[in-house]
C-alpha cells in the first residue's frame, strides 16, 4: 500500500521526535532566560507548570487527532473522556482514599467502558448525526458535574484532590519538575501509541474509512468495529490525559467538561494540522501556550494603556484564538503541518509523499469534505450525487 518504504529509514526526520524528547527531558536543567516567551527562567516552577500543561494538551490533542484527523470522525464529545479521567481519578483518590495505582486502574476501566458505551450507540449513525450524539452525551457529563450529585463533584467550584494518596514526589511547587516529566512521559506515551496504531493494519483501515467508508465496506470489512476501536482508544488516551492534568493542577475543574473544551481540542488539531501527529501536538502546545500568555498579556500595562477599541478585544484570549482559527481555516488549509509540507514540496521541486505514508497532513479536511456531504445523509444529503466511487 505504501510506496515510500525504502526512503523512510534514511530520512533524518525519523529521529526528530526522539531528539525533541531528549531536549524536552533535559530542559528542566537549563536556567536559560527566554525574555518575552516566559516570565521566569526555564526551570522556574511557573514556567515548568505552563510547559507541562502545554505538553498534556499536546497529548490530548493528538488523541483527538486520532479520531478526527486519522479516521475522519468529527466527535464533539471528546471532553467527556478527559473529564472522566480527571473526575474518576479524583473521586477514587479523594472519596475512596485509594492509592494512585488502584485509582489509575479504575480510571482505565472507566476510560474504556465509557467510550465503548457511547461509541457503541453514536457510531450507529454517521456524519453530522454522530457529531450531535457525541455532543449531547458530553453535555450529560457536563450537567452531571455541575449538578453536583451528593456533593461529589463540587459543582462549579471544582474538586480539589486529596494530597495523602499521591506520592510526595508529585505534590507541591518544589516538585513541579517531576510533574513536568510526568506530562512529558504522557505525551511520549500517546505519541508512541498513536505512531504504532496508525502504522498498524487497523490504522490503515481507519485512514481508508476516512477517505471512503463505502469502499471499505465493499472490500468486505466492517467499518463499525474499526471505528469503535479508535473511539475507545482515543477516549482512553484522553482519560489518561485527564489524570495527568489532575496531578498537575491538584484538582478537577468543571471547565474541562464543557462543549467549549472539545471545540478547543478541535481548534488545536486544525491549527496544527489534522492527520499529522506532530502537527496535532504542536497545535495543542501552541494553543495552550497562547491561551495562557494572552491572558497574562491582557493584564499587562502595555495592553491596559491602549485605547478601548484595541484593549477590549485583546483582553479576551478566546476572541484572538477564535479569529486566528478562522484565518487558519481560510488561508492556511492544513494548519502548520500542511504549511510545512507545502514548503518542503516547493523546495524539493517535486511532490513527494509527506511524512510516512499517510496522506499529506492537512489534506485531511479536504478529503473529509466528500465524506461529510455523504455522511450528513440523514434526510438531506441522502439524495445528493456524492457517491465518491
Amino acid at each position, binding site marked *: 500500500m505504501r510506496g515510500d518504504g525504502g526512503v523512510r529509514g534514511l530520512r533524518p526526520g525519523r529521529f526528530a521526535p526522539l531528539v525533541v524528547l531528549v531536549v524536552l527531558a533535559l530542559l528542566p536543567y537549563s536556567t536559560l532566560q527566554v525574555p518575552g516567551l516566559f516570565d521566569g527562567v526555564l526551570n522556574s516552577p511557573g514556567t515548568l507548570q505552563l510547559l507541562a500543561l502545554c505538553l498534556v494538551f499536546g497529548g490530548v490533542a493528538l488523541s483527538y487527532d486520532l479520531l478526527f484527523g486519522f479516521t475522519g470522525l*468529527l466527535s464533539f464529545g471528546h471532553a467527556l473522556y478527559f473529564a472522566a479521567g480527571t473526575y474518576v481519578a479524583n473521586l477514587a483518590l479523594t472519596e475512596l482514599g485509594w492509592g494512585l495505582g488502584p485509582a489509575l486502574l479504575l480510571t482505565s476501566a472507566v476510560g474504556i467502558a465509557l467510550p465503548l458505551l457511547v461509541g457503541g*450507540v453514536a457510531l*450507529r*449513525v454517521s456524519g*453530522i*448525526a454522530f*457529531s*450531535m*450524539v457525541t*455532543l*449531547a*452525551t458530553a*453535555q*450529560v457529563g457536563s*450537567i*452531571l458535574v455541575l*449538578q453536583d450529585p451528593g456533593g461529589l463533584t463540587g459543582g462549579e467550584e471544582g474538586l480539589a484532590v486529596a494530597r495523602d494518596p499521591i506520592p510526595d514526589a508529585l505534590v507541591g511547587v518544589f516538585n513541579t519538575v517531576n510533574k513536568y516529566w510526568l506530562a512529558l512521559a504522557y505525551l511520549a506515551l500517546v505519541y508512541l501509541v498513536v505512531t504504532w496504531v496508525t502504522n498498524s493494519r487497523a490504522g490503515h483501515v481507519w485512514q481508508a474509512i476516512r477517505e471512503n467508508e463505502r469502499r471499505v465496506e465493499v472490500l468486505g470489512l466492517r467499518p463499525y468495529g474499526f471505528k469503535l476501536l479508535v473511539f475507545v482508544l482515543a477516549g482512553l488516551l484522553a482519560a489518561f490525559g485527564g489524570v495527568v492534568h489532575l496531578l498537575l493542577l491538584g484538582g478537577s475543574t468543571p471547565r474541562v467538561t464543557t*462543549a*467549549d473544551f472539545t*471545540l478547543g481540542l*478541535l*481548534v488545536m488539531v*486544525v491549527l496544527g494540522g489534522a492527520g499529522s501527529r506532530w502537527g496535532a501536538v504542536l497545535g495543542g502546545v501552541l494553543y495552550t501556550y497562547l491561551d495562557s500568555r494572552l491572558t497574562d498579556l491582557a493584564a499587562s500595562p502595555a495592553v491596559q494603556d491602549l485605547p478601548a477599541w484595541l484593549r*477590549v*478585544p485583546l*483582553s*479576551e*484570549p*478566546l*476572541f484572538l*484564538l*477564535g*479569529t486566528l*482559527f*478562522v484565518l487558519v*481555516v*481560510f488561508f492556511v*488549509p492544513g494548519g502548520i503541518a500542511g504549511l510545512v509540507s507545502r514548503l518542503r514540496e516547493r523546495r524539493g521541486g517535486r511532490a513527494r509523499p509527506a511524512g510516512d505514508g499517510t496522506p499529506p497532513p492537512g489534506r485531511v*479536511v*479536504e478529503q*473529509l*469534505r466528500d465524506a*461529510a*456531504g455523504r455522511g*450528513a445523509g*440523514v*434526510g*438531506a*444529503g441522502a*439524495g*445528493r*450525487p456524492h457517491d465518491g466511487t
Partner: protein
Amino acid sequence: MSTFVLLAVTGLGLAALYFLVASGLSLIFGLMGVLNFAHGAFLTIGAYGTWWAAENLPGAGDGGWSFVYAVVFGVAVGTLVAALVELLLIRPLYERHIEQVLVTVGLSLALVALVRAIWGSDPRPFPRPAWTQRTTSLLGAQVPNDRFLLVATAVLVLVAVLVFLRTTRVGLVIRAGVENRSMVTALGIDVRKAFTLVFAVGGAFAALAGALGGVYLGSISPGQGTSLLIFAFIVVVIGGMSSITGTAAAAVLVGLVQQFANYYAASGVGDLSVVLLLAVVLLARPGGLTARVA
C-alpha cells in the same frame, strides 16, 4: 392539575425558544449542509442588541411598544451579522462543508468572547415589559404571561415560514434546494441567493430567541446562547435535520420532556432524559422523526 398546566405551558414556552433557534439551524443545514455553530452567537448578539437598545436608544425601553422597538433593533443587528457572516465567511468556502463548520466554530468562540470582553461575563438584568412579569389564571394555574408571548411568537414564526416556503417562488427554490441542491443549480437557478436569505432569516430567528430568552430568564449572559444551542441541535437532529414541521414537533417534545422530568424527577434529570430521547430516536429511526422534508 394546576401544576400540570403550569409545567405544560412552561414546557411549551421552552419549546418555543428551542424552535426559534432550531428552525434556522435546520433550514441552514437542509439547504446548505452547514452545521452552524455560530447560531448561539447570533442569539447572544440579539439579546445584547435588544438590551443595549433598551438602555441607550431614545424611544426604546422596557414598556409596550418601546420594548418592541428595542427587540426590532436587536433582531436587525442579529440579521445583519448573520448575513455578513454568510457573505464574507461561509460563501467563499462554498461546498466545503467541514471548513464551513470549522469557521462557524471559530466564530462562535470569537463572537461570544467579544461580547464578554465588551460587557463582562456577569449576567445583566434584562428589560422586560411589566405585563410579561404578571401571571394569568389558566385552568386554575397561575401562568406567567411571558410563556404566552413565547408560544405565540413561535407559532407565528412557524406559520409565516410554512406559508413562505409553500406559496412563494423563493420558498419553492429553498424547498427544492433542500431536496436536491445540485438539480436546482443544474436548472439554472442561483441557489446562493437563497443561502444568504436563509442564513439571515435564521440569524433573525436566533436573535429573536435571544431577546425572548432574556424576557423568559430575566437576565442575559454571554454564554447563554451556547447552552441553548446544544439543546437546539438535539431538537434539529430529533426533528429529522431539515424539516421545519419535524423541528417544531421535536421542539415541543424536548421542551415538555425536559420540564416534566426536571419537576417530577430531580433537577437535571430533564436534561439527561432529553439526551436519552435523542439516543432512542436515533437508534429507532436514524433519520429523525420525519424522514420527509418540510
